[in-house]
């Protein structure tokens, strides 16, 4: 009896999980489907789900009208660059806060996090003016800089919680074993921290790739990443749903693939420390 009840419970919860998963996934699916429709079918009511005239003409149009590769390259440079610089700054920062904390470490961490609580639009005007004066508008360096700063608090926090989980005993054991600080870093700490650094890197890459506020406001063409590429299909002449969907699909495809292959790392990164 108990066995049957538990089978049923498993069935119900799997069903609920699939349903929730489908709900979350549906907008992406709908976007991909819309990208293969004609403009007319894309906003037809009632909407057609699978039985419509499949076409790839939107992709051709998008390619024709704008340079996908140019924007994709910008996205890679901006997301990758900001992530790498953020890590270079965050690793030593998180390291020292985790392993030689002071009385103010908690306050510093909270203060850093508090900068994420402010709406970015609050500082848009000053930053825009600074960028204008320093000729950083529409430059890759400018975007790398702002995204790096924007994500730094989160990167430091993630790494901090990771490093915190490394037992101090193990570092002391290495010290007793005759390891200098440098060798302790190379042989003991880094190998133990690699999974944490990897998932922080992935998450930050995704955040930077998807960041739209600063990229839309601070770039127009030269440095414009894929977010700007998508936005360019929402024009004053009206929305082109099918083309917008095609552009969006193209824009999220690389990061979706990356996310798919690294989902284990990502989940571990997001739930790390929650369960022992």
């Amino acid at each position, binding site marked *: 009896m108990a066995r049957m009840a538990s089978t049923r419970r498993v069935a119900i919860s799997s069903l609920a999980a699939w349903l929730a998963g489908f709900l979350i996934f549906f907008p992406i699916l709908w976007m991909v489907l819309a990208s293969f429709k004609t403009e007319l079918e894309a906003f037809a009511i009632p909407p057609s789900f699978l039985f419509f005239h499949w076409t790839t003409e939107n992709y051709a149009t998008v390619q024709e009208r704008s340079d996908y590769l140019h924007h994709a390259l910008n996205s890679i440079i901006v997301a990758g660059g900001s992530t790498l610089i953020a890590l270079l700054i965050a690793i030593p920062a998180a390291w020292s806060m985790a392993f030689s904390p002071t009385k103010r470490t908690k306050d510093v961490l909270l203060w850093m996090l508090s900068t994420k609580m402010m709406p970015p639009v609050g500082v848009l005007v000053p930053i825009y003016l600074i960028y204008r004066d320093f000729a950083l508008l529409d430059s890759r360096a400018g975007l790398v800089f702002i995204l790096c700063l924007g994500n730094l608090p989160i990167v430091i926090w993630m790494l901090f919680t990771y490093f915190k989980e490394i*037992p101090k*005993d*193990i570092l*002391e*054991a*290495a*010290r*007793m*074993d*005759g*390891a*200098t600080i440098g*060798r302790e870093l190379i*042989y*003991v700490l880094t*190998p*133990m921290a690699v999974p944490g650094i990897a998932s922080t890197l992935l998450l930050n890459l995704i955040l930077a790739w998807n960041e739209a506020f600063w990229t839309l406001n601070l770039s127009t063409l030269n440095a414009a990443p894929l977010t700007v590429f998508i936005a360019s299909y929402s024009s004053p002449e009206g929305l082109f749903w099918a083309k917008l969907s095609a552009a969006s699909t193209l824009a999220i495809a690389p990061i979706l693939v990356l996310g798919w292959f690294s989902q284990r790392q990502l989940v571990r990164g997001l739930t790390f420390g929650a369960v022992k």
Partner: protein
Amino acid sequence: MGQITLENVQKSFGPVHIIKGADLDIADRSFVVFVGPSGCGKTTLLRLIAGLEDVSGGKILIDGKNVVDVPPAKRGLSMVFQSYALYPHMSVRGNIAFGLKMAGLSRAEISKKVEEAAATLNLTPYLDRKPRELSGGQRQRVAIGRAIVREPKAFLFDEPLSNLDAALRVQMRLEVTRLQKQLGTTAIYVTHDQVEAMTMADKIVVLNAGKIEQYGSPLELYEKPANLFVAGFIGSPKMNFMTGDVAARYGAATIGVRPEHLKIARNGEGWPGTILVAEHLGSDTFIYVDAGPIGTLTARHVGELDLGSGDRVMLSAEPVRVHRFDQSGQALRA
């Protein structure tokens, strides 16, 4: 060589004095146990010797050389941690070899020494496993292997057996003692378990609230406790203490008699009382006696005793078995 001397070693964290001036002489090849209740500073004292904490004052001499400014890596000591602290990403072989690798030994030498250590500790079949694939007892042995392979001047053990189950603990206790004797390396061992202390140590250091209460062989501590704290801490069940008129008759502020030294009789001379509880273990009988104004006394009788709750008994002790303490709790010697 592994002679360790502490001279007025002090440690404070901010305003809190953890170690209030410790003097100690640990002879080469001896097995010394630091024992005391939790929070007494025993682990701190061990970490000071290891160099994992800096002293606030005093000297630590290893083979006559002051090492307070020497980093842990250069003190030539090895440590076994309570949590084992194995490197999780390295195999057993890698764990044991790490210290040798850091010392810059050749690959062949490292391999030879690791094999030897593994053989001593019955770890040979597990050399290529990761720590997470080992049981608690095996992990503990890897931690010990990592300590012995470096041939240190002394081993420092920080409650190494407290995470093991009771049966394994007894077995490992024997193994550690045997290994220490076989290698002839000085060992300092921290524990809160007085049975471990009594069974393993050549000499015991009893610590209380950052102070060394007594330093001596297990039997010295048992037979001649220096003060009330040591008298109460060493021995199980605890020593009976009596104050007031009973003590005054012996010319002391407090007297103490160990449960195994109380003679139990149905009548005759002694302290009269009523048995509250009698525990019959077969090999021993423990009785808890309400002795009126004296308080509750515990007595131990070897073998079976035909007495039970409610029976009247007389308890007495030979004068030589009575420990006498003055007002300040220090032992009075005849």
